[in-house]
């Protein structure tokens, strides 16, 4: 039987009945794999577009050992991971303070809000040439394209997170003589952290999504570049292998974030 995790939070004794629950995820993945196998076995889509799991596995082994598009899988992964996480750091360094300014200062809001609103809907495929013109074709451009995609989720989440601090929590800090900056650091940032973390999770997804677009710019390695190369020649097994690697990396970072949340932000959902 399904149950709301209502008695979960402070429950000193957990019901053991649902110990199989974590495995449901594996079952889902297994189910998807099965569906995929069936789909390719029965030819629901031509093998050019939906190669069998076996062929994708072969492609994976091929790129892992021999490499593809001039680099091995490890090199592609390293290049893309570097870009995504450099972009994440850049987006956080800019986005969190920007969000705090927007949330706490009318002037900050006046200045930054229109900028963010302007930037956030821009399609990377449209501004790519401008980025190249202004920032060249090196790593900075690629990181920038990814960072731009990550900025809005982080800013918006920060802004809405700041509201999680109650009026009296903020006022209490001010009665202890907290400066504007101390109120932000001691009350608003911690209160916003859960929301910022949510923003980071959304941003990471957006970052991976933008990888292919970013690596259209003069890349010589990277998963997006690898996928792009393979797609151009209809090497679909390699495309799907690349997609799955991206999914796996994204899942690992997601799990990492959840761990951080559980470990360092135990107060989420309390108080």
């Amino acid at each position: 039987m399904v149950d709301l995790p209502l008695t979960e939070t402070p429950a000193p004794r957990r019901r053991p009945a649902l110990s199989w629950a974590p495995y449901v995820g594996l079952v889902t993945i297994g189910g998807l794999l099965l569906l995929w196998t069936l789909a390719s076995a029965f030819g629901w889509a031509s093998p050019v577009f939906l190669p069998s799991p076996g062929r994708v596995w072969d492609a994976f082994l091929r790129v892992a050992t021999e490499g593809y598009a001039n680099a091995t899988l490890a090199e592609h992964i390293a290049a893309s991971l570097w870009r995504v996480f450099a972009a994440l750091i850049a987006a956080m360094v800019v986005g969190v303070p920007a969000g705090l300014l927007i949330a706490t200062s009318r002037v900050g809001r006046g200045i930054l809000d229109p900028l963010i609103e302007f930037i956030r809907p821009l399609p990377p495929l449209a501004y790519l040439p401008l980025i190249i013109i202004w920032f060249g074709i090196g790593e900075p451009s690629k990181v920038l394209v990814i960072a731009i995609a990550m900025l809005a989720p982080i800013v918006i989440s920060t802004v809405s997170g700041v509201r999680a601090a109650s009026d009296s929590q903020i006022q209490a800090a001010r009665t202890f003589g907290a400066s504007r900056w101390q109120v932000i650091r001691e009350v608003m940032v911690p209160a916003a952290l859960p929301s910022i973390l949510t923003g980071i999770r959304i941003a990471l997804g957006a970052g991976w999504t933008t990888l292919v677009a970013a690596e259209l710019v003069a890349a010589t390695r990277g998963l997006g570049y690898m996928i792009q190369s393979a797609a151009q020649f209809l090497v679909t097994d390699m495309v799907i292998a690349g997609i799955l690697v991206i999914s796996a990396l994204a899942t690992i970072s997601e799990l990492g974030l959840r761990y951080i949340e559980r470990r360092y932000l135990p107060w989420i959902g309390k108080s």
Partner: protein
Amino acid sequence: ETLRIGWQQIVEPSRVAQADKSYEEATGADIQWNLFGGGADVIAAIASGSIDIGYVGSSPLTAAASQGLPIETIYVVGNIADAEALAVKGISSPEELKGKKIATPFVSTAHYSLLTALDHWGIAQNDVQLLNLRPQEIAAAWERGDIDGAYIWDPVLNQIKAGGGEVLADSADVAEWGGATFDAWIVRKEFAEQHPEIVTAFVKVTGEITDDYLADPAAWGAESENAAKIAELTGAPAADVPALLGGYVFAGLQDQTSADFLGGATAEAIKATAQFLQEQGSATALDDYSGAVNASFAEAAQKTETAQK
């Protein structure tokens, strides 16, 4: 010295020179190879000064030249021949195209060729349902039966042919009808003025390797070392390499300065393309495109080659 080259994953002879590091050897420069997904990005990179030499198709080249960017065509790789073609299903004559769904990647050389062909057949653009799709998506849409035909290049062209597509016209035909499309190497004018010797050496290596291929295409078969090198760089399956190479009418070093290429026809073709684009309302044509073509490096390269011989 560093030479920054922007290339695309196109199967053509200079890939082998790239793989062999012949360019480094001949120019004596430190070469950075930057890969781009399309001509528009190459143009942007050249305009920003991020690269010195780049590989583009005739459409982006025309757009750039029309905008007055300081670039020069230094080597015409070759005219696109049956590498790009209009393949259709259930259509036996151009007349029957009316009302049918034909896909092509808009603004590509194929798009230009398709429009030229329609013009040649006297079919108004609006009589055909033109769809904008990228190559991979064209293959998928064909597979589904969503489209009746496509003007497209390999490997998708091959895929369509294998799926029952009949070629109604290819780019060799269209070139005869006055709409040649080609790929070319271009250079940033400033760089060309500062380092003519490097550009000359670049043209020479490109010409020689192309000549190599033209001399003996059979030596570039699927099992050959050359095909392996190309496959490694571009990601194309080695088995497809010979067919892909066969789709172009490559121009060797000696051809460059002839009236068919840099000696005259190239500037004309750019102008024709520009005028066509202007009719489409997407670009403004100039009167003269000779400034966008520079045969002097090819000439110099020919001389050094003759001197060597």
